[in-house]
């Protein structure tokens, strides 16, 4: 699949009251892509979204949309619609009129409005709610109306600002699949903001990890999870063991007194690096068979797996295993070459 760039963001910065929120963002978003901006609160992800939506102006930098400078276009003329964090539905209008709002602003004939709104209501399974007041609906229903209100305008890009944050876990998971489904069916570029890494992994084609106003890593969910580029990404996405190590040569890394085979190359000989090992990739074996050994410190049952903490010379390793281990026993641990992820120190 060849990807056509839709939005190109170049060296974007935003300063607000002396605080630098965005410190130079470069990002290309393609057509029909589901992009997630992921990061902790205060990382600048919402500000970036608001600039694309036209509710904020950047201090410097460019946003190019289909070859045109987007910053000069007022938000009401952009082919972009937004689903707001707290939905921002109009309390004085009923469900139908909320969804029809955008079409009425564009002076679409009323017969076409009725047809398009009804089709949306059907899609979000709220056909019988057309005449209901907004405040009589549940959070999940309001959420779906907010999405329908944006999608009915057939935007090129849909911006979603933590739209699932206020929903309970079950509903949130259902909505994740529904959103992904809608995006696939309608062929619209989604830019989704969240601080929930699981949400990002489930839904995205591309994840953009942000911290402190800078992009930490851009990649597919698999890339981001398996090949975190630095300590921040490794820690933010899932649990991980981060170990100091030395890159002996290409495909050979040494930590815990043992030289491991790995799949990474391109580092200087004997360069100090950090190694990321996911808890589920560590395997507990008899102490004689292990590459290195440690003492089991605690075992917690988590449902699908046991979370086992193993102490190796004062360092803590988290292991997820379907097999339990005896607290206080000495165990060996091994890890497959493909599961050793080498990254540079301290970015």
């Amino acid at each position, binding site marked *: 699949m060849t990807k056509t760039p839709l939005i190109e963001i170049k060296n974007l910065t935003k300063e607000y009251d002396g605080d630098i929120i965005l410190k130079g963002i470069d990002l290309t978003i393609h057509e029909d892509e589901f992009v997630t901006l992921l990061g902790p609160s205060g990382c600048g992800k919402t500000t970036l979204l608001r600039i694309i939506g036209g509710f904020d102006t950047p201090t410097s930098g460019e946003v190019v949309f289909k070859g045109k400078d987007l910053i000069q276009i007022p938000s009401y*003329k952009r082919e972009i619609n937004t689903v707001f964090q707290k939905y921002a539905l*109009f309390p004085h209008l009923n469900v139908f009129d909320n969804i029809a709002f955008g079409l009425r602003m*564009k002076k679409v004939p009323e017969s076409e409005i009725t047809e398009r709104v009804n089709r949306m209501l059907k899609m979000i399974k709220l056909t019988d709610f057309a005449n209901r007041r907004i405040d009589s609906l549940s959070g999940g229903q309001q959420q779906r109306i907010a999405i329908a209100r944006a999608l009915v305008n057939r935007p090129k890009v849909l911006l979603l600002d933590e739209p699932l944050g206020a929903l309970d876990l079950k509903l949130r998971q259902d909505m994740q699949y529904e959103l992904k489904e809608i995006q696939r069916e309608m062929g619209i570029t989604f830019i989704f903001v969240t601080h929930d890494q699981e949400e990002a992994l489930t839904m995205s084609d591309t994840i953009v990890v942000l911290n402190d106003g800078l992009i930490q890593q851009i990649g597919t969910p698999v890339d981001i999870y398996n090949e975190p580029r630095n300590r921040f990404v490794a820690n933010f996405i899932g649990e991980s063991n981060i170990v100091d190590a030395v890159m002996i040569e290409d495909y050979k890394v040494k930590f815990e007194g043992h030289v491991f085979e790995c799949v990474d190359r391109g580092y200087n000989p004997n360069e100090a690096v950090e190694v990321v090992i996911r808890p589920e990739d560590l395997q507990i074996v008899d102490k004689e068979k292990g590459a290195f050994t440690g003492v089991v410190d605690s075992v917690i049952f988590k449902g699908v797996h046991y979370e086992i903490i193993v102490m190796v010379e004062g360092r803590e390793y988290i292991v997820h295993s379907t097999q339990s281990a005896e607290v206080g026993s000495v165990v060996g641990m091994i890890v497959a070459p493909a599961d050793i992820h080498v990254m540079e120190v301290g970015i």
Partner: protein
Amino acid sequence: MHESTKRLSYPYIVWISIIIIIPMLLIFLYSLIDPSDGNPMAFRLTIDNYVKFFSPIYISTLARSLWIAVWSTLACLLLGYPLAWVIAQCHPKKQSSLLLLFIMPMWINMLLRTYAWISILGKNGILNNILEFFHLAPVDIMYTDFAIILGMVYNFLPFMVLPIHTAIAKVDKNLIDAARDLGANNRQVFSKVVFPLTLPGIITGVIMVFLPAVSTFVIPQLLGGGQFMMIGNLIEKQFLLTGNWYFGSALSMILMIFILLSIWLMKRFDSDGQAGGALPW
């Protein structure tokens, strides 16, 4: 409601009975007593006092009062809404001091403030002195409808600004962003979102200005010179000059009916029936 909570309302019930309900009933009773008898204790009931009202002179007085009150209210709305909007856009700290500025004149006696207008608008008043200084023809505003409306707008504007400001401040900024996002330009954002959402505040403001404007007698007397009578002056005259309390009471009842009617009419614009919360009905 819990019994002990209910008890808290007893003082208020006693209070409202003594100063509102009983006097109202008395006024209603007075309005039905035949004045020609000379002895009210005889209790000869009649509707003559009401019938007397339906002569052209009294009806035109009421019509005039309503007309001037409508204009004053409209002027307050047209001045007050933009003002409330500007205040609501300021920094919260600045907002409270600006609002204070608006309320402060209300701490000064209304009579005094209205007298001040006489010295501004009078024949040799400040306004004409200024005009004279610039070699312009003097204006004769004093004792006109315009002077009355000016006085009313000056006195009642805060009652319009406060509820509208509250309503505007309550509008979620995200809704304005959302409207823009959906393609609304500035004018549409106002007409489709901001205005409907602040309508309850507007209705509260309109009622709070219209009510005193239609019944005041001080302002028309001082600034209108009493040459055109308004319903408030007419009622005042019945009680203080003519001594016909019975007809005065009937006029009060009629005015009350008209006020209730206008409030009911205005409330129909507010489909939700939740006018600002400043008025308890």
